C-alpha cells in the first residue's frame, strides 16, 4: 500500500493506493496520521479512491485515526470510498460518524 500526502488549502489529503487490510498497510496509516498530528496538521481528508478492499483491521485503523485527530480537536473525513468500502462503512454504522464525500472540492470546503 502506498500513502502520499498533499495539501489543498488548509486541508491535508492522505491519498491511499492499495488494500487497507491487516498488517503493514493499517499500521502505516496510523503512523502517518500520528505524524501529521505531531506536525499540527489537524484537518485530514482520507482519500479511498484507490482502495479496493478494507477489512476489519483497516476499519480499526480508520477509527483509531479518527479518534486521535478528534482528541486534539481536529477532523478526519473520508473521500470516495469504493462501493464495497461504502457498504462496509454503512453496515458498521461508521457513516453516521465519519463524514464521507464523493467530490474533493465539496469535501475541502466542508472543513
Amino acid at each position, binding site marked *: 500500500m502506498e500513502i502520499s500526502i498533499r495539501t489543498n488549502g488548509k486541508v491535508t489529503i492522505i491519498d491511499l493506493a492499495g488494500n487497507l487490510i491487516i498488517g503493514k498497510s493499517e499500521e502505516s496509516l496510523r503512523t502517518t496520521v500520528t505524524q501529521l498530528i505531531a506536525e499540527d496538521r489537524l484537518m485530514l481528508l482520507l482519500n479511498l479512491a484507490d482502495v479496493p478492499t478494507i477489512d476489519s*483491521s483497516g476499519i480499526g485503523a480508520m477509527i483509531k485515526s479518527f*479518534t486521535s485527530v478528534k482528541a486534539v480537536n481536529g477532523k478526519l473525513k473520508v473521500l470516495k470510498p469504493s462501493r464495497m468500502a461504502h457498504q462496509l462503512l454503512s453496515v458498521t454504522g461508521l457513516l453516521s460518524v465519519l463524514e464521507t464525500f464523493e467530490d474533493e472540492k465539496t469535501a475541502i470546503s466542508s472543513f
Partner: protein
Amino acid sequence: MWVWLEFHRSFQDSSLFIRHFMNKSAQLKIINRFGVTRFLPLNKTVFSIGRKAENDLQLLSDTVSRQHAEIVYENDTFYLVDVGSKRGTYVNDQRIERCALHHQDRLRIGGDDEQQIIFLDDSVENASAIFNSSPNLTLSSPSRDRAPITSANEELQKLARFVEVNQAFKFSMTPDDVLCLIVDAAIEITRAERGFLMLLNTEGNLEFKVARDRNRNWILGNEFEMSRSVVEESFKQNRSVIINDSKITMAGMPRDSVRNLDLRAIACIPLRRFQMTENMDATTILKRDVIGVLYVDSNVSGETLTQTSLKLLESLAFEATKSLESVRLMHEEAEKKNLELELGMAREVQIALSPSAIKAMEHFEVAASSVPSRYVGGDFYDLIPMKDGRFVFALGDVSGKGVAAALLAAMAQGALQVQFASNHSLTEVITSVNRVLAQRSESNRFITLFCAVLDRDGQLTYINAGHNLPILTRTTGETEKLTTRSVLLGAFDFVEYKSRQTRLNSGDVVVMYTDGVTEAVNSDNEMFGEDRLEELIQRNVTLSAEQIKQSILDEVISFTRGLPQGDDITLIVLKMKS
C-alpha cells in the same frame, strides 16, 4: 475471568498428580556415536519414543517410525511397548511387542545405530545424580595458545551434545543461539580471528546474523570489512572457498579485495537447506538450496587454513543447518502447542458462558448455535430472560480471532447480562456497554452487536450496532432487514444509541446471524450471500425454529463442500408461536 484461572490451576495440578503416583524411578542412559552420554529420567507414566518432535525421546534416524514405541509404567514396573513401528523394537537384540524392562537392558529402536540406549533402574543402581552429565553450556574457553586442531573434533562433539541435550530437555534454545554456537565452533576449528554467519532474508539478500571474534565477543556494527567477492563466489557457486596468505586457490578470484583488507586467510562455506518433512521417510538435502554462508577470516600470518580444517568446517556447516532446522521445528511445535492450549481454554470459557441453546417460551420458540472455526473467533450470543417476562436476544462478533477476541466477547456478554439483570432499558445498556469498551485504552478491537428485547405482546425493540442485518420474514413472505444504522461498539465513547421497534405476529421468523454464514466461500470463491439466506428462510418459514436453524447450517455446509470453515458461524432463530 475466574473461569480462566480455574482452568489454569486444574491443568497444573494434574501434572503434579501423575508424578506423585510413581513409586519407582528409572532412567535411560543414551550414548551417541561421539561417545557422549546423557541420561533421561522416565518421569511420566507413558514415555514416548519416535521420530516426531512431540515424542519424549526424539530419534532422527529414518528407520525410526514417527510414533515408534512407549515406555509404560504399570504396577511398579516399566514396560517397553512397540506401538506399531515399521522396523521393530528390540531389547537385548530380541524383537519385542511388550516387555518388562530390567536394569541394564539394552534398547534398540528400529535400525537406529546412532546411539546406544540402556535402561537403568534407580532402585538397583543408585543414580543419585541424574544430571551428573548435564551439559556444560559453554564451549571450552578460548586462549591465545591455540590447541592443536584435533581439539576441533571435541568442539564438534560438544556442539552435537549441546544441541541433543537441548532437544532432550526442551530448553529454550532459539535458532539464534544455535547460530552463535556454530560461529564460535567455526572460529575454534579454523583458529580464525573472526567469524560471520549470513542468512538469506525474505528479500533475497544475505543478512548478517552473527559476527563474533575469537574471544567469543560480538563484533558490533551492521557492515563489516570483509571479502565480498569470496562470499559471493561461495554463495552463488554453492561451494567452499578457502584462501591462504592471499594465495588464491580458486581460479578467477579477484585478488584485490583480499589484499586490500590485509587478510591472510579466509574460508567461506555455503549453508544448504536441510529439509525434514512429515511425509518423507528419510531426511533430504536439496543441494541447490543455499540459505546462507559461514565465513571466517584471519589477518595473522602463519595461521593457515588446512584442508582438514576445511573438511571439519564443512561437516560443521552440515550439522549446523540440521540443528538449525530441528530447533526451528521444535520452536514451531512448542508455539503451536501453546496456541492450541490457549485456544482450548478460550473455547471452554465460551462454552461455559453459552446459554442452553433451545428455549421454548409461552409465546415464542428460539433455536441458537455457534460453530467455532478452527481458530476460535469472537462470535458470541446470549438469550437472557428478564424478571418482568421480557426476553433479550444478543448476537455479536468481536473483530479479530484468537484468545483476546474470545475473552473480549466473554467480557461483553458478561456486561450485557449484568446490565439487563438490573432492568436497565435497551438504549441504556448498549450506550453504557459501548462506553466501557471504548474507554479501554489502546485496544484495536471492536464489537458488532445486534441486541433485541421482546415483550409479551410481540413488540420487538432492537439496536443494531454495526452488525449484519437480521432478517425478519413474515408468514406472508415479506421480509424486513432490522437496522438502526448505529455504529459498532467500542469505537467511539460519545455515541448515543437509539433503538427501533417492530411488531412480531404469530408465525413470524427472525434470523440473526454472523458473517460466518453470509461470507462462507465455496471452491469457486463465491460467497454464500444474503440473498441465498433470505430465499432459504422464505422457503422454510413454516418450519420450527430448530428446523430453520438446521436448514441454514446444512445449506452452508453443502455450499462450501470440502472447504474448511473460515470463520465462526453463529445463528439465533426466533419464531413466534401461532
